[in-house]
């Protein structure tokens, strides 16, 4: 069947549990296998039963491709492989494979050990699942089978994130996953080849309508508040997720500290995941931005000069400091503990990530001038410190999406991973400005896309040579045409004819074997086995 069929199992008009099943040229690929963090019931997983031949996933699905290690892109993978029983090939990049178990294990621990929920998958499941994974490099073409080939491209976003190109016969598509079109302090911008004949691009659209201004403005604001706070002797708490943001902010601060000679003010990393993550970043230098790579010869950018590790006893030490602590939304753990201690003082500062889930302390702080916050039943915290909201984001903005779509210029675009009204706006923009058909399917919707069907023909050597070499005939006529021009000295019409695309000339012959064949005109007689008659 010609065409591509897209079944959106997750992240259709929402953010969370990314999962798209694409049927292309008879092959079925699952892009991402994420979980929704907002639900605790069966809605947290994509509805796998909708996959055709749901009884035997291994047979039904040719391969799974994971773009990066965030839980909303990989969270359901152990469940799908170990519980649902998929046993086919899985592809992801090396860093993703390295960091995925950290993420999955951390999640499992939080769910089971802390909240005492029912275990969805065990530690062993995670280990077994990752054994099935084939790690790939960027721009490495992998032949999954005879017809399907896939290739990863740098996507920015988080370390190891990739966009994937997949091609079966004449149909080809790109699944972007999450990506970032502007570089940040530690990761580069997404980069992909210019393809011809791309039938479909499936793009994220987290910021479908937002246009973000220069990152320098964000950095300036951030550095200013932090510097002012420490200059006044205050303490800065930066609750952050362990991977990605922490490293970016830390590079930023470390560099600033260096330039401003703030040697006497320590930057602390709370123990735990972050230090381990830093180690991974140091090893995965090849996946960072060009600047980090360039400076690597002299200094590893993740060897932070001013950063030292933190001991709990230092919590109430005197003097200014900056502290990175997990988790990002101050939902519990160490960052909450520090929050309780530092929030009551006016000179201190707490930065908040761009997005906080409702119910967390972070969300309460964000939503207004909460002066008193009920942390748990017994304790109430008097918040007097300054609050600064970060606006860093590893997702591309709407201009970036437009730029990428324009660069790839596919025949169709499907938007996923975004909010419905905004996606509709972006969809309209893509259709009107770029003239490309665009879809924004909801979960469990199917999108059919027709792709051209090419007929294979044979060609003779003479014909191919004739195609590759300049077409003498058209060439001569052009040259004469211009000589006309130069003799007349006016008129633009003759030159314009040079616009004709070079057309290969040949004759299509279909013989008994039914396979059409293109031959050069000189060969025609011999192919047909007739002799030239003198007329």
């Amino acid at each position, binding site marked *: 069947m010609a065409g591509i069929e897209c079944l959106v199992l997750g992240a259709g008009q929402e953010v969370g549990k990314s999962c798209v099943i694409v049927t292309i040229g008879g092959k079925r690929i699952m892009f991402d296998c994420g979980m929704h963090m907002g639900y605790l019931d069966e809605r947290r997983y994509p509805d796998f039963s909708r996959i055709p031949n749901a009884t035997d996933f291994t047979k039904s699905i040719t391969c799974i491709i994971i773009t990066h290690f965030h839980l909303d892109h990989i969270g359901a993978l152990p469940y799908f492989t170990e519980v649902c029983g998929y046993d086919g090939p899985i592809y992801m990049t090396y860093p993703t494979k390295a960091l995925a178990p950290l993420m999955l294990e951390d999640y499992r621990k939080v769910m089971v050990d802390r909240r005492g929920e029912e275990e969805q998958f065990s530690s062993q499941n995670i280990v077994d699942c990752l054994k099935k994974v084939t790690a790939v490099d960027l721009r490495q073409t992998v032949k999954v089978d005879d017809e399907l080939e896939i290739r990863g491209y740098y996507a920015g976003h988080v370390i190891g994130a990739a966009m994937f190109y997949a091609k079966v016969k004449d149909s080809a598509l790109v699944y972007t996953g999450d990506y970032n079109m502007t*570089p940040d*302090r530690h990761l580069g911008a997404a980069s992909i080849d210019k393809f011809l004949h791309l039938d479909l691009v499936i793009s994220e659209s987290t910021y479908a309508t937002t246009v973000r201004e220069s990152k320098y403005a964000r950095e*300036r604001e951030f550095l200013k508040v932090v*510097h002012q706070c420490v200059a006044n002797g205050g303490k800065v708490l930066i609750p952050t997720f362990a991977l990605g943001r922490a490293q970016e902010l830390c590079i930023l601060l470390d560099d600033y500290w260096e330039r401003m000679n703030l040697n006497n003010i320590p930057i602390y990393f709370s123990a735990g995941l972050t230090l381990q993550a830093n180690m991974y970043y140091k090893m995965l230098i090849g996946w960072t931005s060009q600047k980090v790579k360039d400076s690597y010869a002299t200094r590893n950018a993740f060897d932070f000069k001013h950063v030292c590790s933190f001991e709990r006893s230092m919590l109430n030490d005197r003097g200014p400091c900056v502290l990175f602590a997990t988790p990002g939304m101050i939902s519990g753990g160490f960052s909450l503990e520090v929050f309780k201690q530092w929030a009551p003082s006016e000179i201190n500062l707490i930065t908040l990530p761009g997005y906080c889930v409702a119910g967390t302390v972070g969300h309460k702080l964000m939503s207004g001038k909460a002066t008193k916050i009920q942390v748990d039943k017994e304790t109430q915290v008097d918040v007097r410190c300054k609050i600064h909201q970060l606006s860093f984001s590893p997702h591309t903005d709407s201009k970036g999406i437009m730029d990428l779509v324009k660069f790839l210029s596919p025949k169709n675009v499907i938007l996923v991973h975004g909010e419905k009204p905004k996606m509709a706006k972006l969809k309209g923009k893509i259709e009107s400005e770029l003239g490309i058909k665009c879809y924004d399917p909801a979960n469990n919707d199917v999108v059919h896309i027709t792709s051209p069907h090419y007929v294979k023909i044979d060609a003779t050597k003479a014909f191919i040579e004739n195609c*590759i070499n300049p077409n003498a005939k058209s060439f001569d006529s052009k*040259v004469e045409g211009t000589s006309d*021009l*130069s003799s007349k000295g006016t008129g633009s019409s003759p030159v314009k004819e*040079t616009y004709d695309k070079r057309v290969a000339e040949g004759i299509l012959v279909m013989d008994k074997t039914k396979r059409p064949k293109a031959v050069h005109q000189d060969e025609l007689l011999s192919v047909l086995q007739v002799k030239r008659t003198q007329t």
Partner: protein
Amino acid sequence: METEKSIWKKCENELTTYYTTENKSSQGHYLKALACTRSLIVNHSTSNETIIHILKILLQILNSTQHHFHHHHVLKLLHELALHHDVLSNVVLDNVYSYVLAHKDTSRLTTKALGVLVEDAKSSSSYELGEDLFRSLCLSPSVSVRSWVLGNARRFCVSPGILVSVMLVCTNDPFPNVRRAALEGLIGLRELEDVRKRGVIESCYDRAVELLLDNNEYVRSVAVRVVCEWGQILAALDSEVGNAEGFDAVFIQLCAIVRDMSVEVRTTAFGALGEMKLVSEDILLQTLSKKVIGVTKKRKISGLVTSKVVDLPPSNAAGVFVHGLEDEFHEVTFYCVFTFSVQSVKWYSCNLSVLLRCPYCLVLKVRTSASISLGKLTVFSGKFSENALSLLMDMLNDDMMSVQLQCLEIMYGMATSDRLKVQQTHMHLFLGTLVDSCSLIRCATRKILRLMKLTGVDMFKSVTNDLLTNLESYPEDEVEIFNVLFYIGRSHGKLALNFVMEVLQEIEPSSEGDLCFDKSRVAAILVLAIAASLSHEQHTKTIPIRIFTYAVPFLGRISPSLRDVISQDTLFAYLSHCSRSAHPPIAETFGQEEQIPSVDGHIPNQSIKDIIDQVSSSSQIICGTSGSQYQDNLLDLKHTILVPEYQPKLNSNQKEATSAIVFVLRTVAATWPLIKSGSIDEIQRTLRSCKDELVTISVEFNGSVGFLAFACQYLRVIKMLVKVCNHFLPPGKKSMVAELEELHILEIILLNCVLRLSKPEICCRRTTLKKLCATMSNLELLCEKGFIKLSDFARELKSFCQEESSGDDVSYGSIHLERLLELFSLKQFVYSEKIKHIKADLDVPGNDSENPLPFISGLPTAVTFQITLHNGLPKENLHIQGCMEWIVIGAPLFRFVFSEYEKEYGNRHLYSGEKIFLRLIQNLLILKDLEPNFQVRRSSSRKEPEAVPSRHLYRGGGRWMALFFVGRGSGGDFE
């Protein structure tokens, strides 16, 4: 000669047998023969006879119809031959030309042959490469031939019209490198007059626009250039008939490609944007904002593509510079910053007075005539600069120092054209650069601060306070900070006055009566007070008189930083006047009745009025109060603010010093007769006083350091000579003619050798003789070149050398030597301004008496060292070689030879020798006593490294320094 012939014989044999028998087994020999032949051709000393032989054989092979495969080897050799032997090049080219005509095929061989013809500049005119040939080559099945032909199309005699259309057709080629070559060809054709017809230009532009979407990044990047070049030609044509939108269309077209994924393309695109001669204001504004702004939303620009009508949305330009500045690849960022500054500067120059001088005045005139008033332009430019400024300010946070510096540079440009309007929001970041750990950045920031207009009290306070705290963190910047404070204080007199009054207590003696006069902060406030008082006469009244009194003891500290505005004497005069008179210095009364005594007793012929006038006139320029006057002074700002009497003083100072050195040299020369008469003590006294003289000169001499260093060294040599002479010498008198410095030195070296030889127990006879002969031949060569007669001394020595080399070594010829010494006479050294002083410092980092290098006895240890070469040589490959002698206590001398190649490091040359491994047996290594001994050689690719005629080592300041005079090898002067 003989070897040469035998080599060629062998080669010839090999070549001819190879071509006749085609015995493939001998391929190795054949290639070797080819290589030999080539070296014969390239070698300049090969005799003509052999060359002609070679030529004959080569042509013979070329003209034989068989073995086409090997013709390219032959062609290559012929090419070399034509290059290296001008006389024969015509013969070669004739033959190759006929070869091309005879083989009218389109193979790569023909291109190879054509390459020979084309590369020779002379041949291109004399050998006509016709249109037919060109066409057939363009149709060649070989891709490399096609791209070669397109690259060299200009060498063919083809009419431009045909060239363009052939190029256009070739932009359709299936192979990207052919497309690329065709596009590059199109760029080259844009200057041809015949091509400048609208139709042609349009087709070229259209095609390039299409190729902006090409699959291959290199094609895209060349297409960008074509769009830029041809688009502007097209737009200029359009604007002649009143359609001014053309440039915008091209600009937007280019903006569309700026987000390309290929670094190459992005870089070219930003470069191309910078080349745009004209862009309208709204589009330029749009480039600074990623959000589409209102003005651009409404605007519609029709593209220049003629084949199909396309609307170019101006939103393409949205945030182009923002993207560029954020780019991951610094080359893109650099281009972007550059483009940005170019466009900004172009933009600022939209001022009538500058307009006339602008190279693009034609275009701009058309633009202005399109009913856009000048006033509106300035308003817009103001807006643009405002937006641009905030972007630039943000860039100060970039992690690359070079980017930061570039931004500061642009801001300085804005400040000089009075367009720098810094807002309070930017101040934190901007002032942050003041405390930057890099001194370059601090310096650049202060440069801007000097010119900056501070709006409001808050801004003034924050700047001043930051500068004052800066003084504590970077005391080494004191001079500059005072200077900045002075400028700021003067241009913001009132604010400065208020500020000074506020912090007055700080200066006052504390309750215990301590004056904290040693504080730099106090000095800084005093500077501010002086500046405020100089800004306006009125302010002098307000400032308490005692402030000026306090300032007097600071004179020595303050005046160096104000040197560019006010001299120390004048400042002193001003201060002492202000502190004495209870009344404000009103000019009329003061100027007539009282003259101020200055430090050293003479009376400055300036009244206070003059001082204020003088200072304020220079300040006016800096503050940019009057626009037109300001424009003229923009370029030589430095020049105008220099107090006039200052510069000639410098010059005369230098001349004086040079003549003093010349005088010293003359005195030195005059001592020679005294040496012969044997009054050694007297000579030594003279020489010592000469040396003292030189030391005095060196204190205040900042002119040609080379000459001074040379003089010192020279004096030293002579002094030692005198000492040595004490032991020999029954003197005599002779004169010499040579005036070249090098001759002079060489003779001294010869003398040294002779002296050594005459005391056989102090020298190794053979080495000395060897050196003597080498120096002698050097000298002879010099004399030969300069047609200078050998001195008697040298002539005698020459015969002595000949005798020595031929004769038996039993005769020491001490009588001979004595006579030689008699013959020698020292002449005055003539200074010819060619002396260059090259100094090298050797440093072993991390080694001093307190923390010596760690090592374990008996094991090899690594010593890292650095050699810094000052007054760098011209950029040639330097080969530094040397040996070090290490003194290890209780052990014999160690000697290590190292050799390193050059590393460019700023304008100095820094060699960091990796590591020398030493095996140390004893316990202590005293690195302080290491004695490096360098030789710097220039090894340019062609010549052999040259030896250094003389060098000397001396020790200074805990480091070892080597001082040498590098001669130009066999002949020539000191440089």
